[in-house]
């Protein structure tokens, strides 16, 4: 991937682009947001990267995470409206949605546990089982498929040595197919945790995995809910 000519945000043609990867992703502008979610209007979005994936046994919804949930709740006339953001938050803290986490959400929002499970199981982004540190989602829908999405999927499986949906032995990888990621002009689109990799060819896969392997230790332990930036 570290190909200076190839702009990861842009379509498969190499060339001299004015904007950098950081500018496309907006990382300079956005920076890192606080664990308590920042302004209430946007507290339902993930201020932290899903990099903290990988389980934590802190109590759910205490400290800064609790503050974030209160902010989320303040934005809906019915607490049930906060269900999706609350599940996202629990997912972010725990790395997946365990029965215990879903029950905690149900209790906080005054819903029945069965109802919460019914909703959680409807949406594909709520993972009810633990995942690898990196969830690699390869788009194989039509636009990417026309440009070789299936081969990219096979390359990820080959180089991680796992079957779709499995967690690799070192705990690093889970690879699945995903439906259209809305990056069709930049095939093949691959989402790895929170980050999009666009314009991926099968031969790019080993370099992407290497890059992630190098980043993995820096991600460290899951963020502590202190309200500080980390």
């Amino acid at each position, binding site marked *: 991937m570290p190909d200076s000519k190839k702009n990861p945000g*842009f*379509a*498969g*043609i190499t060339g001299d*682009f*004015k*904007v950098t990867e950081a*500018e*496309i992703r*907006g990382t*300079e*502008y*956005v920076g890192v*947001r606080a664990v308590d979610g*920042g*302004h*209430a*209007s*946007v507290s*339902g*979005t*993930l201020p932290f990267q*899903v990099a903290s994936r990988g389980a934590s046994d802190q109590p759910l919804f205490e400290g800064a995470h609790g503050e974030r949930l209160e902010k989320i709740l303040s*934005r*809906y*006339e*019915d607490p*049930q*409206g*906060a*269900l*999706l*953001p609350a*599940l*996202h938050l629990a997912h972010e803290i725990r790395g997946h949605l365990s029965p215990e986490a879903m029950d905690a959400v149900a209790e906080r*929002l005054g819903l029945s546990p069965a109802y919460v499970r019914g*909703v959680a199981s*409807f*949406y*594909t*982004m*709520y993972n009810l089982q633990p995942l690898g540190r990196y969830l690699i989602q390869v788009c*194989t*829908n*039509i*636009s990417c*498929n*026309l*440009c070789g999405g299936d081969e990219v999927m096979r390359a990820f499986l080959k180089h991680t040595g796992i079957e779709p949906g499995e967690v690799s032995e070192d705990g690093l990888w889970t690879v699945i197919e*995903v*439906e*259209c*990621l*809305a990056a*069709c*002009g*930049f*095939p093949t689109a691959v*989402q790895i945790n*929170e980050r999009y990799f666009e314009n991926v060819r099968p031969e790019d896969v080993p370099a992407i995995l290497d890059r992630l392997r190098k980043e993995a230790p820096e991600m460290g332990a899951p963020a502590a809910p202190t309200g500080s930036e980390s």
Partner: protein
Amino acid sequence: MAYPFVHPDETRVLSKHFGEPEARTLAGWEARGGYQALRKAVEMGPAEIVSEVKDSGLRGRGGAGFPTGVKWSFMPQASGKPHYLLCNADESEPGTFKDRELIRWTPHQLIEGCLIGARAINVQHVYIYNRGEFFETTQILARAIEEAYEAGYIGKDILGSGVDIDITLHMGAGAYICGEETGLMNSLEGRRGEPRLKPPFPAAVGAFGRPTTINNVETLCAVPHIVTHGGEWYRQWGTEKSPGTKLFCVSGHVRKPGNYEVPLGFNFREFIYEMCGGPPEGRALKAVIPGGSSVPILRPEEIDIGMDYEAMAAAGTMLGCGSVIVMDETTDIVKQVRRMSDFYTHESCGQCTPCREGTAWASRILKRIEDGWGSEEDLDTLLELSENMAGKTICTFSDAAAAPIVSSVQKFRDDYLALIRRGENLAASA
């Protein structure tokens, strides 16, 4: 070279500042004339905004093409209860990637559009339902919303007008069906994203039981420009019934994929061959899907038409959300239709039997044909199945799932037959 590919024949209104990182900051947006439309809208008052948008002829960009001003006029006057405006940013139609780019490059354009829309229909709270997968673009939009709150564009007493409008960014969680407006409302309410029966329509009973309007990102992004320059100005582009410009997302076998903004009614053939560079060197065009995977496929000889709602309908397809998927002669049509069908099987919410069962059966039959075990009767079965799926369910998902199957069997029957014959020959020689 600017933003991926910019063609001189484009008419860049909404996409003018794509590729300019500084345009996404509040200061950068204000320097580009941002929030002037909001100032004007606050003075204009609701009735005048609605009338201006009606005059412009702006039509919903999410796919259905319903006139936006008319939709707004369905909202009741202030009833003392909360009213809601929902911005549909759950972009998930295969082939579509315009809303993500609009949010990524011009988040304040969307915020301004939401605020003006809210002002027009007396809404105090706007929810932007953003697709769950869009972590990166969501952070850009979130930062922009925080900036706009700090600057007093959102919140209490906007620009000293006495008008209060809040915006909340709400993340989806991975379900195509939540892009359907009633499914989106259910999802916002913390339910499974299953579409609702209409009537009651959202303007009467919407999110949380309140009067609600749902608009697409691109629709709302066009509103500030219309308020600034007037409805007549917007009509300088496009056709009588489809005025204005539209973003088209081009993907697949094309030399210059990306987003292009052109006036509605632009010639489709010229668009594909001139603007987007046509299929790769030395390969012929085989098929084009003009509006996302849910619309009927066109053959190369059918593309000498205008890119507007009426011309597409006359050609037996739909403009949809303007997602042009180009397929060249190397394409295995049956495989691609099977892949689309798998998508619909996965994403069917399961409420209605024709859709839940129909999508799954269609996928299995298509897979059988693809693998060489099909027969000619399977094609009749597919058409019969599709007929039982279309128009028989709560929402139009089932119709969307049937569209590529029916159009491909009708227009690319030879591709199906070739696979069927090959399988029969293999079986005979075994």
